[in-house]
């Protein structure tokens, strides 16, 4: 008993009074205003569906995996969604390994409610064979560093991981047509989940006798606060969940004010998540083409264009107008690149680039040191550089191998230059579907 007390951290009376007095003048210990969020960075791992979110000092990792399971009896044509939160002892010396404590359970429930009951994830599209096989999505949230406000950061990590997760495509086959064949990612491009909206959790802390409200409490402020309110809302103006489990009583007007502030912050955070996911998608699309390291000769270019076209179709299905066009150009860039044997420095710092010569260890170390903090901005700069070379190289490709697929891709590029309307988006999709059918019949 004494050992546990000796090892735990407790806040001193001085620190508590300091925080409360500073708040009376609207000052917080890290220099923020009462309604300022800390710095939010969202990074993605090398696999689909893995995200790492840093909100100030708080660090959380999210992993999404999927599995084919039998559905629940009362919902035979819906997939399932499960959230597992791990309060790792690495985050806080008071977290213990083993059964989750009450704050871990509460966090899991808040994130779960925001996603499941607001129907943010479309579970009906996860059904494969009604009553027999559905996809079960599992979200693991690992708390790495407890710098306060774990709920918000965990929510963002879960959303970021879900947006970048790809589940394998499966078709019905076999003798009786009831067998489910799961296609590995090399054969068929995996599919994204259908996410209708993004529920963002915003946490408010009430500190002191006058119940001053602050947003995004750090862990010092959490130790001092008298009550906490978490509001989960989306940019459509819907309130997905509100959690206020006990603590100090607050006036109705204060709660309404909190909700108004929360809707502003939710829009902000949604924008940041979407931006991070888009830049990750472009990097990932580039990496996808590099997955097929065939020799670079004319015969293979049509094969590669086929593969990239399949990928294109999938990306079009899952993305918006603007992203469509971007992924077009990024894919064409990559294949035209390989044709002209460009050596480029793309991909994450620790990934092997099969097209550069085998570098010796020192060179690699030097480049690693310089690229250790690779930001998405660097990648987008490389992307724009590629786009400039696009026009020159597509012409050479057209001369080299006038396959119908290439022409379709070129047409799509020309359409990009005209004003973008919904019709433009719809037309190429249908064209591509017909071509795909003919190809699959032929192959």
């Amino acid at each position, binding site marked *: 008993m004494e050992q546990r007390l000796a090892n735990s951290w407790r806040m001193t009376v001085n620190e508590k009074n300091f925080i409360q007095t500073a708040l009376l003048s609207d000052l917080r210990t890290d220099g923020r205003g009462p309604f300022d969020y800390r710095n939010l960075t969202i990074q993605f791992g090398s696999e689909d569906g893995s995200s790492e979110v840093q909100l100030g000092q708080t660090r959380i990792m999210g992993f999404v995996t999927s599995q084919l399971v039998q559905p629940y009896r009362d919902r035979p044509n819906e997939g399932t969604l499960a959230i597992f939160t791990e309060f790792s002892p*690495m985050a806080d010396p008071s977290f213990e390994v083993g059964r989750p404590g009450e704050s871990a359970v509460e966090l899991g429930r808040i994130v779960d409610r925001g996603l499941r009951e607001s129907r943010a994830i479309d579970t009906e599209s996860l059904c494969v064979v009604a009553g027999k096989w559905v996809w079960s999505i599992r979200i693991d949230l690992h708390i790495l560093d407890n710098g306060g406000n774990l709920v918000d950061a965990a929510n963002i990590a879960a959303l970021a991981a879900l947006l970048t997760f790809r589940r394998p495509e499966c078709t019905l086959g076999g003798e009786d047509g009831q067998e489910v064949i799961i296609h590995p990612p090399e054969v068929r491009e995996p599919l994204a989940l259908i996410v209708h909206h993004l529920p963002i959790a915003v946490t408010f802390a009430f500190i002191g006798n006058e119940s001053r409200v602050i947003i995004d409490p750090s862990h010092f402020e959490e130790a001092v606060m008298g009550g906490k309110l978490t509001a989960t809302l989306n940019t459509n103006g819907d309130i997905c969940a509100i959690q206020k489990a006990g603590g100090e009583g607050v006036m109705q007007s204060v709660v309404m004010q909190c909700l108004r502030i929360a809707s502003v912050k939710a829009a902000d955070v949604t924008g940041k998540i979407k931006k991070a996911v888009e830049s990750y998608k472009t990097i990932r699309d580039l990496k996808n083409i590099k997955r097929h390291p065939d020799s670079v000769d004319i015969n293979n270019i049509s094969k590669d264009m086929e593969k990239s076209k399949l990928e294109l179709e999938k990306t079009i299905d899952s993305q918006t107008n603007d992203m469509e066009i971007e992924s077009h150009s990024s894919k064409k860039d990559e294949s035209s690149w390989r044709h002209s044997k460009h050596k480029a420095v793309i991909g994450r710092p*620790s990934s092997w680039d099969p097209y550069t010569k*085998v570098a010796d*260890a020192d060179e690699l170390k030097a480049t690693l040191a310089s690229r*250790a903090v690779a930001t998405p901005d660097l990648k987008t700069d490389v992307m724009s550089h590629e786009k400039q070379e696009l026009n020159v190289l597509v012409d050479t490709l057209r001369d080299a191998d006038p396959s119908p697929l290439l022409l379709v891709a070129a047409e799509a590029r020309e359409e990009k230059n005209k004003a973008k309307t919904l019709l433009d988006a719809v037309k190429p999709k249908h064209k591509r579907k017909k071509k795909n059918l003919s190809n699959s019949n032929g192959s």
Partner: protein
Amino acid sequence: MDIERAGGRGANQLRPIDCFRDVLSRAHGSASCSQGETRVLAAVFGPKAGTKKNENPEKACIEVIWKPKTGQIGKTEKELEMILKRTLQNICLLSVHPNTTTSIIVQVVHDDGSLLPCAIHATCAALVDAGIPLKSLAVSLCCCLTESGQILLDPSKLEEQKMKAFVCLVFPSSVNSVLPEESTPATTKSTEQEIITSLTHGVMTVDDYFHCVEQGRAAVAPLSNILKKKMRSQSAGKSSKAA
């Protein structure tokens, strides 16, 4: 005869190693190590008061918690915890802080082969970051054996699954191995002949095993130089994390 490896790596070529210290704010010491695509995060808390039951109170106790990426904690995780704990017990100076517990938490971020070596490097860096007194650092390497008897160093996940057998070795890496040629060859040889941990999967002949050990030992000096350089290159000043 020569097996072709992904990315054109040679048989004796390791993937790029990167190591960052002080990545977490609450932990007393933390480090993140990546070897190729494999990434491991380690955090150290300690020394804390008291030892666990059945542990010798006259020495410090080391506690390892291994957290996999997804899924429940099962037997493989418990085995890895035990391996890490015994390896670290050899490296740490246990008599400096008797009747204390040092907790080490290892989180797997991505596993692409050579997971245990990566974890050991991350743990050593985290222990250095926390200021736990160590006898020496540890350097670890994974070697796999192909059907034709060729030895490949630092296999990726696909290679590990395809190969006949693979072995993971941990060697101590002391000050002597970092000093340039002034140090007497006798002292360096005596420390480098030790193998702290050896873990094999699959079947291999005795000769093959010793060939792997030779390859591993040859890689110890350059590997430990790289790791020490990475650890040293971080900023020297760091505020106390006792609070």
